[in-house]
Each structure stands twice: as structure tokens, then as C-alpha cells.
């Protein structure tokens, strides 16, 4: 039962981690906005998440026909996700840094982070309700 609750939050963990990672890349861009020969770094959130999901959907069973039932893995694995980040270094390289743009992105990202935390709080409330009956 506790295992189930753990899995329940696995996806939120990944989302929060990627938000923090994006925030860090933006902070790095703003800090280095006047450094010569600096390449702006950004992660493509959608692409990253898609990649994580796809990499987790793979299983050992060979599927010879499309109508075969695909075995789904239960949830995403955070370790796997960090490995992907390290391996692919999914940075869109772009030369110049526009500090205004970066600041707006930073703010937007922090608000999205708060939304995610609100979602987690709601999930926890739901679990409480289920326990209390």
C-alpha cells in the first residue's frame, strides 16, 4: 500500500525536478549574460518529458504486431531521468542572452513550480480523505 503511495508521487517528483533544472539553466544564463563567448542554455521541457516517458515504456517483451497488448511500466523512474539529462545534455544552443526574456521565463517557471506544489498538496489531501473515509 505504501509502495502505491510512493508511485503516486513519482511523476510529481520528476516534474518538480525538471522545473528546478530549468530554473537553474535560466539563472546560469542571467549570471553569464555579459560573459564573452557564452552560449545560452535552455532545456526543451516537452522534449525531455517525452523522452523520459518513452524510455520508460520500453519492456523486454517483443511485439510483432501492433495489436499486441503493450506492457506498461508502472511509473517513471527518477534515476533514469537524471541519466538522460546527463547523457544528452539537452541544451538548445543559442548565442545571445536577452536578459528581459530570461527574467520573464524565470518568473513563469517559478509560478509553474508553485502550481505543481499546489497539485501535490491536493493529492495529499485526497489521500487523507481516503484514509479517514
Amino acid at each position, binding site marked *: 500500500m505504501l509502495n502505491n503511495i510512493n508511485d503516486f508521487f513519482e511523476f510529481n517528483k520528476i516534474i518538480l525536478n525538471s522545473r528546478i533544472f530549468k*530554473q537553474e*539553466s535560466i539563472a546560469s544564463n542571467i549570471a553569464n549574460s555579459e560573459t564573452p563567448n557564452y552560449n545560452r542554455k535552455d532545456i526543451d521541457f516537452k522534449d525531455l518529458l517525452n523522452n523520459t516517458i518513452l524510455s520508460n515504456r520500453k519492456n523486454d517483451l517483443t511485439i510483432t504486431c501492433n495489436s499486441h497488448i503493450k506492457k506498461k511500466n508502472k511509473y517513471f523512474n527518477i534515476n533514469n531521468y537524471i541519466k538522460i539529462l546527463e547523457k544528452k545534455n539537452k541544451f538548445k544552443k543559442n548565442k545571445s542572452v536577452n536578459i528581459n526574456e530570461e527574467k520573464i521565463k*524565470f518568473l513563469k517557471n517559478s509560478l509553474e513550480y508553485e502550481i505543481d506544489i499546489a497539485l*501535490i498538496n491536493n493529492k495529499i489531501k485526497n489521500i487523507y480523505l481516503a484514509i479517514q473515509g
Partner: protein
Amino acid sequence: MSLTNILNICNTALNVEEKRIEISANNLANSESTDYKNGKFTPYTAKIAILSTYKKDKYGLEGVKIKEIVKTKDPYKKIYNPNHPLSDSKGYLKLSNVNVLNETVNYLNASRRYEANLEMIKTIKYMLLKTVSICK
């Protein structure tokens, strides 16, 4: 990959901007002074900071630091002032190459960047507090 790491990045940026403001103030203060070295009087040369990235982490994100402080290559100003004790045989006096307008703009630029980084720290602090408040 953590919120505290972002605080470290902001910290490096704050240090750099502080140093840049210091350099601009130094240049402005010395815009009329002369250096005395090896028995010779030379006009003060303006200095400028060259930035570089600092401490790359395993994801390739980095802070910023001052790589070195170099003297600018602008030519010295020359004015005709034969009465001055330091002027040459033709009556010309060399003055420092500090461009007051440039320095003021640099100073404003650095202070704005400092503000931007401070604001980022505020946002991160808010995010950290939000994270702590999960399940409350």
C-alpha cells in the same frame, strides 16, 4: 540540480557585479590622477573586467567570475597646457584615458544586473518556502 545550487549561481553573479561597480568607481575617482612609477609620472589608465564562466557542474550549468582585470587600450587625452609642471617640451599634457560617460553607463549596467540577481534570489527563496509548506 537543486534550488540551493541556483542560490550559489546568483551569489557568483552578485560578487562579479559588485566588483565591476568597484572598478567603475575606481576609474571615475581616478579620472584626473597620475601614477608615479620608477621616477616617472604616467597618467592613470582605465581598467576593465573580463568575465568568464565558473565551476561547471555535471549538467553543464555554470556561474560567473572575473577572469582578469585589464587596462583599456584607449589613447590618452592630450591638452595644451604649457604651465603645468608635467607637460612635455611642446607644452602638451597627457591626461588619463578614463571616459566618464562610459564609466557611468557601465556602473548603471552593473547595478541593474545586481538588482536582477537579487530578485532571482527572492524568487528562489519563495520557491523554497513553498516546497517546505507541502503537506501543511
